[in-house]
């Protein structure tokens, strides 16, 4: 039997909480959507480092399969670009 997986709603709360608990990302008030255990990040960050940090934090949350990062930052790719993401090993129903 596989373990029960958190719902997208619960995952979204967990990601928001994880971002709020980090002193660097807490003030960014990033937008978060979760569907099929994939996190979608939006909003703005003042640097690419913080943008990347937000993605890392979201990706670490248990149950998250992947992160589509559309956070705006100076020098970052356009949020409107096509995003194809490698799925993590923690995939629902995965290995």
């Amino acid at each position, binding site marked *: 039997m596989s373990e029960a997986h958190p719902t997208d709603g619960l995952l979204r709360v967990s990601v928001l909480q994880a971002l709020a608990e980090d002193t660097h990302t807490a003030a960014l008030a990033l937008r978060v959507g979760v569907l099929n255990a994939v996190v979608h990040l939006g909003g703005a960050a003042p640097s690419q480092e913080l943008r990347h940090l937000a993605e890392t934090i979201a990706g670490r949350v248990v149950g998250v399969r992947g992160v589509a990062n559309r956070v705006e930052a100076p020098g970052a790719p356009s*949020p*409107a670009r*096509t995003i194809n993401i490698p799925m993590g090993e923690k995939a629902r129903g995965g290995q």
Partner: protein
Amino acid sequence: MTTTRASLEAVRVFSTLPSFAGLDAATLEALARSAVARHFDAGQVIYLEGEPATALFFLESGWVKATRMSPDGREQALLFLKPIEVFGDIAVFAGSSYPGTVVALEEVKAWTIDSLTFLDLVARYPKLALAVIHHLAQRVLYFISLVEDLSLRSVEARLAHTLLKNAEAREGSLVVPRREWTTFDEMATRLGTVRDVLSRALHTLEEEGLLKVERHEILLLDAEGLAKRGNSR
């Protein structure tokens, strides 16, 4: 009640929607009173897949793109919308989160109405409910054709079909204008494929003399031939 310039503008936008064209003045004004104007820069996220559906949007100007991430992590375009259109409505009526991400491809002006407010308006104005049903039915038909396209047609057939659907007559020729944001990646996402496969499909159709790819447009040289390719599997 005073009619502001903004609400007159909103009424104009709502009444331009084919599904909303038959609404009476009272219904349109009720909608306009609840609407808030929003501006988005090109490239900006309007809403994200899986975000709570807090509002629906009436697109007044600029193009937007709606996409959804497939289970294997590949982005699929659901819709490219130009004014005047509604989006975000499916999630509002389903009571779910947004099923896709919507981004502004150009500078966008839209009118938003809070979800609960809109549901209340639908309950109070039966003609609005009918207009919404009509619009949602149109959207269902569109998605049926998208499913048919993606599951039954080859990339070349989808490409031919999409080009014909978006063709414009210009100086005696049929052309598909390439907007600033119409990159090969965007076109590939729209067709449910990847850039390399799209390039090969374009090359094949070009070799067959059906089209010519130019910098700012795609010239359709043989509409009949493209129609045949568009209907093939």
